[in-house]
């Protein structure tokens, strides 16, 4: 099952029985990265080490040590301004597009340094897909939306494209609703359908990980529920990292949860985001280790 590269010296594979992983990286750790009680999660596929992001001189978020595992949904929660979306965007190098953003620390995907010389941004984004907060289908037909990704990365024939489009739309639980109108504009779909189209579009390039940035915040509760169901269905094929400001959603949907908070440093004027606690969702929501987590969960802050 695991085809790990030789560079995996730093990567830890399942099952995780060690409480703390390698100590070298824990220099600035706030809270120990605890994996819980040894339940077999999937193997670890991505990992961030002392991840931090500056916008110009401003330190937006720091000390993020996360491990993303297969077969799981990992939720990033916290008050606004704590950097969860910023961190998410590091995982597929979307922050490259912001000229003032500087990413420090490291992110490993299957042992490869995401920001190192061996990683090409386009490939990174193919392997690590993203769905955005507001559905952003292209102003083209439903078919063209899903076909765009594969065409960017290869030259699929007409038949292959048709096949890919159907499979992706099925995986996103949208096929039945649109199969008769693939040539219609993507904008003819409802908000929830558009978001599932965006998911299908991301799945069409067969990613290894799916990042979702508050995917349901622009949708009504029914559409939200459908997407949450979809997430459950696909997580065994596509591990998901989801940023959400909706605690209940995180509790419903995720296997692991990372809680971020904001702090104002000694010389800073604006608050910096920091990873406070990262653990099994059950534990975070029932018996969090950090007081700040407990306060946020119980609604006393954030």
């Amino acid at each position: 099952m695991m085809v790990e590269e030789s560079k995996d010296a730093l990567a830890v594979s399942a099952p995780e029985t060690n409480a703390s992983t390698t100590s070298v990286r824990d220099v600035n750790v706030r809270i120990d990265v605890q994996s819980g009680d040894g339940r077999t999660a999937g193997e670890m596929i991505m990992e961030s080490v002392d991840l931090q992001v500056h916008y110009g001189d401003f330190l937006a978020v720091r000390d993020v040590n996360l491990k993303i595992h297969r077969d799981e949904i990992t939720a990033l929660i916290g008050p606004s301004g704590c950097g969860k979306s910023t961190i998410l965007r590091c995982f597929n190098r979307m922050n490259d597009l912001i000229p003032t953003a500087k990413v420090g620390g490291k992110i490993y995907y299957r042992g490869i340094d995401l920001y190192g010389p061996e990683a090409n941004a386009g490939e990174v984004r193919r392997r690590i897909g993203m769905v955005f907060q507001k559905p952003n289908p292209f102003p083209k037909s439903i078919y063209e939306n899903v076909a765009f990704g594969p065409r960017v990365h290869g030259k699929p024939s007409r038949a292959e494209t048709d096949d890919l489009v159907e499979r992706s739309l099925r995986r996103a639980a949208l096929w039945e609703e649109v199969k008769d109108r693939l040539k219609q504009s993507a904008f003819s779909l409802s908000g929830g359908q558009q978001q599932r189209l965006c998911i299908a579009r991301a799945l069409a390039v067969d990613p290894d990980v799916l990042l979702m940035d508050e995917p349901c915040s622009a949708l009504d509760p029914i559409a939200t529920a459908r997407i949450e169901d979809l997430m459950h269905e696909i997580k065994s094929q596509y591990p998901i990292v989801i940023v959400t400001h909706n605690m209940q959603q995180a509790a419903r949907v995720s296997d692991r949860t990372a809680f971020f908070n904001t702090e104002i440093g000694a010389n800073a004027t604006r608050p910096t985001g920091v990873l406070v606690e990262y653990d099994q969702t059950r534990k975070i929501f029932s018996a969090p280790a950090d007081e700040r987590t407990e306060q946020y969960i119980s609604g006393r802050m954030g």
Partner: protein
Amino acid sequence: MSLTKAASLQDTTSTARKLRDRAFLGTLWLATLIALLTLIVLVFTTFVDGRGKLNLDLLRNFPSPFPEDAGIQSALFGSLWVVLTSGILSLFFAIGSAIYLEEFANPNSRVQRLITLNIQTLAGVPSIVYGVLGLAFVVRGPLGWGFTVGSASVVLTMMVLPMMIVASREALKAVPPSLREGAYALGATRWQTISKQVLPAATGGIATGSILGVSRALGESAPLILLGALAYVSSNPSGFDSDYTVLPLLIFKYATEAQEEFRAVGAAAIIVLLVLLVALNLLAIVIRDKTRKSW
């Protein structure tokens, strides 16, 4: 306790104040009326002057010293050649420049600011100065193409270019960033994103911009005076090295002829020019409406 204020909402404005209000509105109406009257009278008198000559002969004939035989054919074709060529050329340069400036160049770099400043400067230069430039560099000087269709096309391209760059940049700016983000997130490269998503989405704006550029080129007269378009040309252009004339300059010529009969021919030529321009602008409006997508 009693309310001492009168419970009235009557108008308490003084008559003087009301008079001033009326007078002001009156002057505004006057201004508007002047503008409208100008348009109406201009179109009307031109139509009255020229309707007698509005027939197929006008299009079949070539300019002639005799008003009865005078037509506009060579000017029509000359305009077609010159305007189409400069339209295509300037579109190419405008889109290329706009893409570079909007999508690739760092907005704060000196190069970007220099280019943008230059474009602003160029847009404010009187058109006759482009004629002088053309005279020095294109007709004579390094290129030495003489008074030909090619010279006119190049000069008009330079003149129309700043406006088209601005229009193309606006069209690109109007494409929402979420579109680009969506493409990048799928692993597309910058050029793939631009060529397959951004440019197609900006097509409407670019098309309307280029049509407006073409209309401007069609009606332009001043620079072409210096580029030999005022000659008597009695044949249609056959190549870029042909002698030529364009519709606005033929109108100019007919306006300056001593014989009164040429006035009618000139007016008829104006009608043809105006019809062409109206058609172009309607096309621009249709394109704008057709490509207006809801984001």
